[in-house]
């Protein structure tokens, strides 16, 4: 991509994100005008109930959607780069299934630990990643990129079988699990975002610091190693970072599909293939996409709400197919 266009791209995308955030504040089951919002937030005699809705309900929700979008997008980008496979995503790596199984297990066997569900989701995602990485990196020989994906698919199948078994044994928990597996931002509070939000921000920063080395991975192992890059440890770190990001998002947003797959593709079409630029573009595009999806999900059938994950899948799948079959331009 032309360098001049790259300089313009980020400010334009950030502008779109800012508009999305504004829209997130303005619209919802109750609509406020801009003057009402300004008055509630910045004046002493503003409506306290409006301030409460904006700061206690909408702000955490927008923040959660933005963090989830940014985290999953960078996780997807890292997974696709480290495995050199454009179809790789958190769900292909088995991370979603692992987190889902952990949550299901907690709901069924330890229902008294309901407050620990986000931590269990994170633990499940982290355990699955370690399992997949351990299997892929411990075996000798070449083809680690393929092994990661195949191990991910096998582990996902195993955990999905576990979820099915638990749902047969404990049919009562199915409605709660369905809400988690659909993904969404209902009942999110700011306090719940501190730990996962910090992890996401640190993870994104670490990915950006690694990006010059990650760029070299596209050259293949021989050339990358010839350029002094420790390919295997770099892949491991990139995959571990991706799993930390996924785990952090799953812990408060549930199993939000498609973001990690689609956003890196969108970002590449917009910004080219330099990962140094792709990371900020993915962060801003991912955050915008999820904030807008959540906005539509909570206003479309207002006052009823759809889980954002369902909407993302409904919009994302056709969009992905469109990208796939459209003639590629470089």
């Amino acid at each position, binding site marked *: 991509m032309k360098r001049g266009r790259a300089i313009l791209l980020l400010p334009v995308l950030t502008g779109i994100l800012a508009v999305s955030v504004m829209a997130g504040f303005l619209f919802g089951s109750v609509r406020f005008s801009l003057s009402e919002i300004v008055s509630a937030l910045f004046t002493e005699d503003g409506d306290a109930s409006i301030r409460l809705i904006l700061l206690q309900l909408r702000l955490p929700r927008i923040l959660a959607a933005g963090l989830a979008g940014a985290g999953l997008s960078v996780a997807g980008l890292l997974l696709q780069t480290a495995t050199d496979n454009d179809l790789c995503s958190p769900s292909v790596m088995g991370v979603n299934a692992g987190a889902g199984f952990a949550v299901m297990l907690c709901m069924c066997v330890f229902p008294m630990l309901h407050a620990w569900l986000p931590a269990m989701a994170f633990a499940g995602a982290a355990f699955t990643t370690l399992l997949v990485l351990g299997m892929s990196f411990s075996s*000798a020989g070449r083809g680690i990129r393929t092994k990661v994906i195949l191990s991910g698919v096998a582990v996902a199948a195993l955990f999905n079988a576990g979820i099915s078994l638990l749902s047969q044994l404990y049919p009562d928990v199915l409605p709660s699990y369905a809400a988690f597996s659909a993904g969404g931002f209902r009942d999110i509070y700011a306090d719940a975002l501190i730990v996962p939000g910090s992890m996401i921000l640190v993870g994104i920063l670490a990915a950006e*610091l690694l*990006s*010059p*080395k990650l*760029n*070299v991975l*596209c*050259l*293949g*192992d*021989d*050339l990358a*190693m*010839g*350029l*002094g*890059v*420790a390919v295997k440890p770099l892949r491991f770190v990139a995959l571990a970072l991706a799993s930390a990001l996924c785990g952090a998002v799953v812990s408060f947003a549930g199993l939000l599909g498609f973001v990690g797959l689609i956003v890196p593709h969108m970002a*590449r079409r917009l910004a*080219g*293939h*330099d990962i*140094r630029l792709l990371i900020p573009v993915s962060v801003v595009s991912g955050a915008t996409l999820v904030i807008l999806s959540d906005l539509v999900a909570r206003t479309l059938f207002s006052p009823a709400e759809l889980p954002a994950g369902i909407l993302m899948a409904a919009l994302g799948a056709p969009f992905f197919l469109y990208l796939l079959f459209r003639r590629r331009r*470089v």
Partner: protein
Amino acid sequence: MKEEKRQREEAAIECRQVRYSHRKKEILKGIDFRVRSGEITVLLGKNGSGKTTLFRCIAGIRRLTGGEVRLEGRSLQEMKAAERSRRIAMMPQSLPLLHIRVDELVEMGRSPYLGFGGKLSERDRAIVQRALRLTDMERLASEAVKTLSGGERQLAYLAMVLAQDAKLLLFDEPTASLDTEYRSRVYTILRQLREEGYALAVTMHDLNDALAIADRIVVLENGDKVFDATAAEFAQSDLPERIFGQETVTATSKRGERVTMFRPLSEEKESGHKRI
């Protein structure tokens, strides 16, 4: 004894009894090998003889199972990866089709010199420009690598390797899939680098190309070194026939020059060339 010491001092890289095994199969069986500054050393050998593995061992891509590689008197195993890649650059056989632009590819050659931010300095940019100029890729700098022809792609990667600014350059079959024009361009660049004092090692299968470009020829057979001498000595040996099934012939060119060349043994009866 003195001559041997002088030669060793001149050697940019020296392999001493290099061994490499993979899954209990010994691929390199104790190879002594030197590449000197200002020389082109050509490695010949059939597929599977260990040429590429030897290069990978020298470039630090494979870990030796025995022996030692010394670079300007220092053991390669003692060097960190970034330092090693500032001194040795290798262009492998298979070069991926990438979406990135040629100048972005060549800039990657500066990776061993960059910090965490990956920002290029003025010096880095000057070296990248020089590499593009030397390979005549300046005009294609903004093109995506995947849109280039096979020959152009080879030159783009050659520019990337040159941007690495290493004094020892390893080329694994750099002309295998090129037409005569691009072969000639690659060889011209290699000769120019030799004149500038680089140490070059090149693997190839074409004996005539090897004869035209090599100062020294090293032949590997089943992981052993079976020959290491000048190109002229190689032409006079029985190796071309014994290992490669080619005979050495001398002929007179249209300009009246005597030339030595190789041809497959099966062609012997069809021509009246004198056999050496």
